[in-house]
């Protein structure tokens, strides 16, 4: 018991240290390095809280996507001639950000402490009703069944975010390709890495969706892994990003929410919007999960890639 307590206390201390060092460091790149470290530690914290589904998502987002996104943004800023020292000299801005974060923490802590003790919330109800449905992982059950409309809306929000990023494209590059053309030595380490890892990532993504119906995993975690290996393939210069006018690409982006919505509307026949007929529930949830995975993967990868910058 003592070891567990010490471990949790140490983890909290390191997370806070990483956060403070990321915010107070003079060096912008140092702040990014600490943010990556912070993501890894937060994933471990979710493991300690026995929220393995969330830990998987945080590991994929924090270790995979955020680092690539922030370092890419830093590189673009540097090349655009923005001086790091100048950007970081607004101590007032940092103070406001710090105060806002502290205030959010206090409100969240107050909300958690205000919960009546000894209540299990909806967990017993979810466990009881899960048997009627297709899946045995309670998190997937809640996301895809009991509160399916939340998940449907979130998948659409992700798509809207991408539309917003694309809206920043100047008319001259519209329909073009995001980012710079990446290149690498064809027989070098980077190209080898970019060929070896994506197949493993693909298998892992399929495994995570499949596992999601009975144990931690699911479309979002798997989609993030897909997005990460997509970015790696591009960074290794093996394939270029697709032009944003590509019909195939747009189909992939919309497929997940569209299939989800279509099945949801068909649910009207079974009694209500987003209701699944009992005998098909498992198959339908898996179908939604798999198409959502590919759409989430494509959307996240393109969010990181940014607006179109050159002609197709």
């Amino acid at each position, binding site marked *: 018991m003592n070891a567990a307590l010490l471990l949790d206390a140490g983890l909290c201390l390191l997370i806070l240290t990483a956060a403070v060092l990321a915010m107070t460091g003079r060096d912008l790149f140092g702040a990014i390095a600490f943010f990556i470290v912070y993501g890894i*530690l937060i994933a471990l914290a979710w493991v300690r809280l026995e929220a393995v589904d969330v830990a998987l998502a945080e*590991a994929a987002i924090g270790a995979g996507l955020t680092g690539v996104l922030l370092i890419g943004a830093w*590189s673009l800023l540097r090349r655009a001639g923005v001086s790091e020292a100048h950007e970081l000299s607004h101590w007032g801005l940092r103070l406001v950000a710090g105060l806002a974060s502290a205030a959010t923490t206090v409100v969240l802590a107050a909300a958690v402490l205000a919960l009546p003790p000894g209540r299990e919330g909806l967990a017993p109800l979810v466990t009881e009703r899960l048997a009627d449905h297709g899946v045995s992982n309670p998190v997937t059950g809640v996301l895809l069944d009991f509160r399916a409309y939340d998940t449907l809306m979130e998948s659409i929000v992700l798509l809207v975010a991408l539309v917003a990023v694309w809206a920043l494209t100047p008319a001259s590059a519209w329909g073009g390709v995001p980012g710079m*053309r990446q290149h690498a030595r064809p027989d070098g380490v980077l190209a080898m890495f970019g060929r070896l890892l994506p197949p493993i990532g693909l298998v*892992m993504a399929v495994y995570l969706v499949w596992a999601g119906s009975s144990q931690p995993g699911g479309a979002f975690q798997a989609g993030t892994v897909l997005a*990460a290996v997509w970015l790696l393939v591009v960074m290794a210069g093996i394939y270029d990003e697709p032009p944003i006018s590509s019909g195939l690409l747009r189909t992939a982006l919309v497929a997940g929410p569209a299939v989800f919505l279509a099945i949801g509307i068909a649910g009207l026949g079974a009694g209500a919007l987003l209701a699944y007929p009992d005998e098909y529930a498992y198959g339908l949830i898996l179908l939604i999960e798999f198409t959502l995975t590919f759409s989430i993967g494509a959307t996240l990868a393109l969010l990181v890639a940014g607006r179109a910058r050159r002609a197709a």
Partner: protein
Amino acid sequence: MSEFLLLAALFLLGTIALGFLRVHWGPSRADRIASAQLVGTGGVAMTLLLAAAGGNSAIIDVGLVLALLAAFAAVAFVKSTSADGAGDPEENDE
């Protein structure tokens, strides 16, 4: 046994804390990103210990994802240091 595994995880947390110093000091950016890599490897090892301590092998999947993506930030970093920001440090080698 799970007490021992948790203590081992605590020890790893200590080695990660040591790594923090190098992320903070640098001096070069490569030092910072390489020490972030050390935190990643330590984190993977911690997930394995926690999986065994808690008897929950699904936690190993978190380690798998961390290990798969461990190199990504460093790859983005070495690309940003190439001449046009889109290359590969090995490109001009003979």
